């Protein structure tokens, strides 16, 4: 297993460098943001681009970028969206808001999603199952911003239960902040709950009809015992990686939901950096997500072995 992990980590480093290089070259191959014709500031913008080395060959620019990152951990300063500010600082200052709302959302979604899935599977082909399955499909087919607007209108405007927007500040653990996050958390949770419900129900239904479940019952286990000890654990082989997959999404945030509730997170950062051709910011965010995504892949693969000991990673047997 150790050897396997080391192999995967080395592969990951190579992948990160290749992806970074591709991103670096591709973003700079985009035509530079158009300079306003006859604007008096055009000359200054051109001079600054020249000084920043944007007219040098791409690989020379990439070399300078790598040198700065590896020798000084300097990811550069934003030259458009947050002029003059360190891009790593900007990104890290915005990450907590995204992480907290998504974390709360997943913590709410896991028990509810799995719970509804179990109930639907145990009550398969009854009105309970039909109701849960239908609602699940409706929720999955509805974009999350629809829930956001409904929550904002009914819970914030009509009932006055929550503020319209997430509170300003960084005290994410405070009660006031948590309450202000609830509309965001709810908007994000609906589709996650529905996904977990659907996955859990499908897996559980399949496991419950397996022969080993019949064997467990004939050995004298009650239905509850057989379900919890055997069926549920087996269905977790699929559900747990799905949960881990959702955790990866924590980092990337939701562009639309963050915008509606004014969450000062990273949701729009990536897209905005591309639109504004803010190269340093784009590169920093790209590298971050590449590393997080690759690490998450490794964690998910390893997790299989812990959930189901029959699965052996890297084994050639």
């Amino acid at each position, binding site marked *: 297993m150790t050897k396997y992990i080391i192999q995967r980590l080395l592969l990951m480093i190579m992948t990160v460098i290749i992806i970074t290089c591709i991103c670096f070259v591709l973003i700079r191959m985009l035509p530079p943001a158009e300079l306003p014709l006859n604007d008096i*500031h055009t000359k200054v913008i051109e*001079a600054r681009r020249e000084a920043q080395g944007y007219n040098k060959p791409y690989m020379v620019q990439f070399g300078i970028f790598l040198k700065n990152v590896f020798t000084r951990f300097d990811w550069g300063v934003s030259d458009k*969206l947050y002029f*003059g500010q360190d891009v790593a600082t900007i990104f890290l200052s915005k990450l907590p808001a995204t992480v907290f709302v998504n974390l709360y959302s997943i913590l709410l979604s896991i028990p509810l999603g799995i719970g509804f899935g179990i109930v639907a599977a145990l009550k398969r082909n009854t009105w309970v199952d039909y109701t849960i399955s239908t609602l699940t499909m409706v929720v999955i087919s509805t974009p999350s911003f629809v829930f956001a607007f409904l929550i904002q209108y009914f819970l914030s405007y009509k009932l006055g239960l929550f503020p319209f927007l997430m509170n300003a500040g960084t005290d994410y653990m405070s009660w006031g902040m948590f309450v202000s996050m609830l509309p965001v958390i709810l908007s994000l949770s609906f589709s996650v709950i529905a996904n977990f419900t659907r996955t859990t129900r499908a897996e559980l239904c399949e496991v419950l009809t397996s022969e080993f479940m019949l064997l467990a019952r004939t050995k004298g286990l009650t239905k509850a015992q057989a379900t919890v000890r055997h069926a549920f654990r087996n269905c977790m082989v699929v559900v747990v990686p799905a949960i881990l997959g959702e955790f990866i999404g924590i980092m990337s945030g939701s562009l639309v939901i963050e915008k*509606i509730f004014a969450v000062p997170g990273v949701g729009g950062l990536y897209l905005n950096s591309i639109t504004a051709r803010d190269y340093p910011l784009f590169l920093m965010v790209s590298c971050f997500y590449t590393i997080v995504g690759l690490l998450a892949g490794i964690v998910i693969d390893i997790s299989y072995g812990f959930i189901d000991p029959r699965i052996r990673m890297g084994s050639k047997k």
Partner: protein
Amino acid sequence: MKKLSTVLLVLCLCLSVFAQAASEAAPAAKSAAPAAEAPAAPVVEAKPTVVEFKGDYVFKDSVSTMAANWNPHTYETSDDAYPVDSAYIRLGLYNIIFNDEIHPVEGKDPFKGYVVIPEMAAALPVDVTEEVKASHPEYNIPADAKASYAYKIDLNPKAVWENGVAINADTYVYSMEKLLDSKLLNYRATDYYAQEFAIAGAEGFANSGRTIKKTNSLDGENCDYQIADLVKGADGSYATKEGYKAYFGLTDANYGWMSGNTLTSYAKYFPEGVLAALQAMADEKGYVPVTDESLATLFKFTNSDNWGNETWEQLAFYLSYDFTYPTVDFSTVGIYKTGEYQIVLVLAKPLAGFNLLYSLTSNWIVYKDLYEACLKESNGVWTSTYNTSVETTLSFGPYKLVEFQADKFMKFVRNESWYGYTDGQHIYVDPTDGKTYPMYQTTSIECQVVAESSTRKLMFLKGELMQYGLQADDFATYRNSDYCYATPAETIYFLILNGYADAINQREGAADFDKAKVDLQCLLIPEFRKAVAVTYDKELFASTVSPARSGGYGIIGIAYVYDPETGSLYRDTPQAKQVLCDFYSVNVADYASLDDAVASITGFDPVAAKALFIEAFAKALEAGYVTDADNDGKSDQTVTITYSMSSDSDFMTRTIDYLNEKMAEVTAGTPFEGRIKFVKSAPLGNAWSTNIKNGMTDTVLGGWSGSALNPFGLTDLYVNPSYQYDAKWFDATKVILTKTINGEEITMNLRQWSDALNSKDVVINDKTYNFGDGIADIETRLEILAAIEGKVLTTYNYIPMLQNAGMSLLSQQVYWVIEEYNPVMIRGGIPYLKYNYDEAGWKSYVATNGGELKY
């Protein structure tokens, strides 16, 4: 004793009557003095009793995009200007406020005009041109200049930073040095040398030692160098006589007269192999050194038929050359200290009066220690974090920044160090109750990012925001609300109508173009264009597609002030009214007055439109543009007018639907019945503009907005190919206009009239004409402006449709001191905002209304 008491009483009575009379006379005398000095009225002789406000007054604002960098040297966008424009953390040397009894303007009722007051300055600038010209020849003030080049400005000694540190002459000089520092490459540096307000030596210092590619011709008429002037160097490349190396710019888009096109844009006209040969010689930026080889290659083009009738010397218009600014120090820049609180500003171009004061309403000063701590250098590139957070911001205005979270929230509170709260200048007499109030009743400003308009609306109705800009769906509900305010904007949106014959013919010649069913060439027929122009009722169009806006009739909007001293609007002048009457064929004699005649204009004349369409059809048949094979009297082809769409939207759909619907109504019974159709192009993004300029699409709602205080500057947009949408099919140098000015009949082309109107010397028959600001009288300038407007309108390249405006609701918590719109002051902003409720009272008021307010 009784008699004595009576005498004493009578004496007391007399004294009190005299005292009363004296106290009444005083304000009248006081108000008369400064009025004579309009527009500036800084004199306040006695302290009036000023009402004191108690309580918390929070202005709750929202923006779509939060400011990220409000450094006066580097900020770029209007979003970034929020802390200055809306929260007043900085003030200029001068400020513009409403006129009232304390700051009167002769001939203007209170709050109907405005005055300029010294703000960070202590007094109005004093012209010291003669003095500086003699003592500082390094600033190159022209020998014949007597005024308007140099000003001595006394600074306000009470002005301090929010931490109490004094702002003095050193602050101004140091800040200007940093602003123009060539190594910092500050975005705002050009604001101080590339506009009307240009500080002497600023350009040289800001570019000190830098080599740039300079464009040989900016206007397509004049060249810095001719090709014959170039000198061949030892390496075989040609340079100017000063030694600046010359190039042909293959991809240089700075040739302003080419409307953004480059030499490569014309590659299709090059003989085979020419482009490839040039590209092989070009450097990585597309510059081809001028050598015998590159000239020989280009001669293949100039010798071909595609070069037309022009001579090869015209290649000079495609030249650029390396230009190196001499290395100079800051002493060459026209700003220096003459006292602890006194500076002298020397200008590169003359500027005086309101325009000078207006240019000084913004400020460039920075806090030295903090500024230097925020500077960072990496690989030779300097950046600064100054004014990007609470820690890096120091205010010297009425408010200071106390909270900031990027992309989320910012809060400003009163800056108690600001002199204006106690100097007796920042007060006004309320026109309603006659009492004297301090400006800036607001105690704090909270601004948060609210991206969605639906959220803004809900928050506004809950009393959580002060203003809500109406969206299209809201107009029916709120446009008649007592709390609804309309604010005109500068822009006129016109339908640009394609008239580029080459492009239209090329499109019709395409293999997939079905000439049997579709036609584009009718767009080239003048009668057809005129018919389109009178097909639409402008007010109806506005109310259908964009209710906040109104109908647009001229190419210059209703918000332009031609005389900043008085605030008079161009559109209100007889010249501007007459030009509209002429264009829309309204006979003024048929009306009681010119105003009535103008008021009758709708832009809609279905009878004339039908007649013009019939006439156009006859011409189109004759020219072979359309056919009528079945002799039914109708065109066999549909004239398909492609709208140059950047991206699709409800607005686009409404616009196209309206254009088609009304066109169908007007063309009913004509040969074009059902045969004219507006269609959307594919979403073109930013390319919508180049498509319309190149005639690849046929129409678009476009517009220009210029400085609200200078309508004269707009003319350049319609006659200068650098800006013109119609540059490919309208040459302003070929349109002749004759005007009688001061008894002299002057004939010039449209471009020349525009140049002369905008302070350029135009030489006609060895006589120089210049009708610029301060040179020609205002009536003459208005005559010329109106004449140019009339000429541009009659090209039918621009069909005015919409006058831009915005409508918003104002919270019941507050009200404007004056509700009437003022083109310069709008409604006064935060300084003139008054509160009906403080915060506690407002919460209670909202609660008693069930938490949901009605507007």
